[in-house]
Each structure stands twice: as structure tokens, then as C-alpha cells.
């Protein structure tokens, strides 16, 4: 981000001034972009919190104000924390009670599909309420979400991947990464549609998905297989599968 500030201004030959937000203060300190607003928010939330338009607008305006106030490379500190809920801690309203994962691909796929179907009504509710989904980077549509379970079950059990109806956007092994991201998006979107005491944080959602769902267990099995692979394209993708701190069950 900081490098881009320099390159955009250079490429514009003085016609485009840059300002922006920074989540890691050490980065603008080291790379000295012209104008940067450091914000004390979680990674992934540079404007603060979802569904907080007044707060988001204030963050944006504070970064834009640097265009009028800064006269030399400047890092300003945003003074407010992102809004959070004061309600009770979040917990998924659907008790999934994940089974011991089956060793055989068909059976494991059926277990995953059963879990997906428990969440599907909530996901449909989310799509209805927000009018959109972020699923689709693997090539699967929401209607094809159960097809992703087949891919994951095949890989987790060491089974040759079977053909399905999904028009994949990527070959293996990248297909696994984006299929995993789409499934996690489905779980997250379903979980955040439920009427709960508060919105989950990223840590809440990761703890739920990796410690209380079958998908989390299967993703760990997959990562275990990927680590053992002699193919560096496969082992190198491990860091793109499971967030730091969740590679082991709690």
C-alpha cells in the first residue's frame, strides 16, 4: 500500500495526490508515503466496522483531510476504536455437533453436506436480507456449494478427485484454496445471518469454524496432507488455507 502511494504519484507526474489508511503503523513509518492515517482496527476492517456508515465516513474524511493539512510526509493517528457491540459474546445459534470425520470420501462428503444443509436456511436468509453473497471465487455458485464438499472430501481422504458440475476457475491445487475460501464464506455468511446477541468478530468466527464444525476438522486434515506433499505448489499453499493460530484443534 505504501509503495503504491509512491508509484501512483510518480506515474501521475504530479497530478494525483495520494492519501490512505494504514493498519500496521510500522509500514508507513518505514516507507514514508506522503499521507497516511493509522487506524487501530482489526486487519480486514480498514474502515472500522460493518454497518456503521457514520463511523466509516469519519474515517474516510479523516484520511482525505490530510490532503488539505499535510505539507510533508505525515502519519496521523485516528483517535477512535472501531465500534463494537456491548451485548453478550457471540455464539452460533445452530448447534452443529460435528461427527468424527469418516475415512471414506463418499461418507465424508455426506457428512459435510449434512452440515452445509443445516446452515443453508440461514445462508438463504442472509442473501435475502443483504441482497448479495461473496461466494463465487472458486467458480461455484451458491446452488453448487455442496459440490465443494465433494472436492474437499476427496482430497482429505486421498481420493482421486471426481468430476462434478462446477465450472472451476482454477486447476489444482489452487482450486482447493478458493473452494475452501468459498465454503468458509458460506459458513460465515450463514452464521452472521442468525439473530444473536452480537455480531461475531473474526476471532469468534474462526474459533467456531475451526473448533466447532466438521468443515474445520476437514480443512485441518487437508492442510496436513498439503504439508506432506512433495509438490511445492501444494505445500506452499498451506499458508493460504487456515488462519494463524487455528492449524491445531483447541
Amino acid at each position, binding site marked *: 500500500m505504501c509503495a503504491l502511494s509512491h508509484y501512483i504519484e510518480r506515474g501521475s507526474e504530479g497530478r494525483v495526490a495520494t492519501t490512505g489508511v494504514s493498519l500496521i503503523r510500522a509500514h508507513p513509518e518505514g516507507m514514508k508515503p506522503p499521507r497516511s492515517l493509522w487506524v487501530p482496527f482489526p486487519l480486514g476492517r480498514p474502515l472500522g466496522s460493518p454497518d456503521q456508515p457514520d463511523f466509516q465516513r469519519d474515517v474516510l474524511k479523516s484520511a482525505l483531510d490530510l490532503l488539505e493539512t499535510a505539507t510533508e510526509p505525515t502519519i496521523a493517528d485516528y483517535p477512535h476504536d472501531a465500534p463494537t457491540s456491548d451485548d453478550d459474546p457471540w455464539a452460533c445459534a445452530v448447534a452443529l455437533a460435528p461427527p468424527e470425520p469418516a475415512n471414506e470420501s463418499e461418507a465424508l462428503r455426506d457428512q459435510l453436506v449434512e452440515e452445509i444443509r443445516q446452515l443453508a436456511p440461514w445462508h438463504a436468509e442472509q442473501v435475502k436480507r443483504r441482497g448479495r453473497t461473496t461466494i463465487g471465487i472458486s467458480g461455484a455458485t451458491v446452488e453448487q456449494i455442496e459440490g465443494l464438499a465433494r472436492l474437499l472430501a476427496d482430497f482429505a481422504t486421498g481420493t482421486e478427485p471426481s468430476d462434478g458440475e462446477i465450472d472451476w476457475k482454477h486447476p489444482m491445487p489452487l482450486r482447493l484454496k478458493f473452494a475452501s475460501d468459498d465454503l468458509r464464506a458460506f459458513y460465515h455468511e450463514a452464521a*452472521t445471518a442468525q439473530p444473536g446477541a452480537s455480531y461475531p468478530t473474526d476471532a469468534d468466527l474462526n474459533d467456531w469454524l475451526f473448533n466447532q464444525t466438521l468443515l474445520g476438522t476437514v480443512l485441518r486434515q487437508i492442510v496436513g496432507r498439503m504439508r506432506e506433499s512433495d509438490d511445492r505448489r501444494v505445500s506452499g499453499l498451506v499458508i493460504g488455507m487456515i488462519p494463524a493460530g487455528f492449524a491445531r484443534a483447541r
Partner: protein
Amino acid sequence: MVRTEDMHPDMAKNLLSLPLPEIEPQPWITPKPLAESTVAIVTTAGLHAHDDRTFNPGSVEYRLIPGDIDFDDLRMSHMSVNFDRSGFQQDINTVFPLERLRELAEQGVIGGISRYHYSFMGAQPEPTRLEKTGEEIGRLLAEDGVTAAFLTPV
């Protein structure tokens, strides 16, 4: 409040070990007043239109995001899993504040909004590899009459 000292040690170590190359500073640009500025968003969140290409490992390419894009058409294909995606899933403005920018334009705080916005994938192990595409974006924005860019990470 989230700071690196509050993060998982592996994540903080990774973020703080990213190279921070010295880039020769450009001559200082004195921008137009905000009320006369045309503003574009440049994000490193790995966003793109649903039908556009995803970001693959090591990509320094950019994706074009038209200013009239429907939020339902935006997807995120960032390689890193070490950041919150639930904010984006619930409200795209948490990452890509186009609706907030429109409101500032309606209020007259900024002069206007670019017809085009741009997206890269962040967490680059070698930020200087962004030089060519970054300069290209600078040229494109300038040729389109944009006077200010709001850069946001994820």
C-alpha cells in the same frame, strides 16, 4: 483496539518482517482543495468483479472496478487468510467505502468521484514489484482527470 502486539505471534511476526524498501520520494504534490478534488479508491484487498480474473499467488496485477459496479458483483480473492473477511461479507464499505465516498460527494465535501477504481492484492513480499503497475495506475487516474487517490489496505 487491535495492534500488532495483540495479534497471534505468527501473524505479527510475518507482518513486521515484510520488507520496507526505501523508495525515492517524489516532489511534494500540493493537492487541490477537497471540494474541487475528484477522488478514486485504490485497494489492496484483492477485490474484483465476479466475472473478472481472481488474484493468484504473487500477482502484482490490478483489476478495474467501475464506479457504477453493483456491490453484489464484487468478490475478494486475496491469497492471505490472516485478516477478517466477515466485515466485508456483511458490508462491503468496511473494505471498499464507495457508498461513503458517494455521500461525501453529495454533501459537497469532495468535488467528484472517479469513473474507475483499482484493486491490487496486498501482503506483497516484494513491494517494489508493484512499481510498473502502480505507475500505470497513476497515469490512468491522471489521464481520467482524477486528482486524489484514497488508498486502503485490508
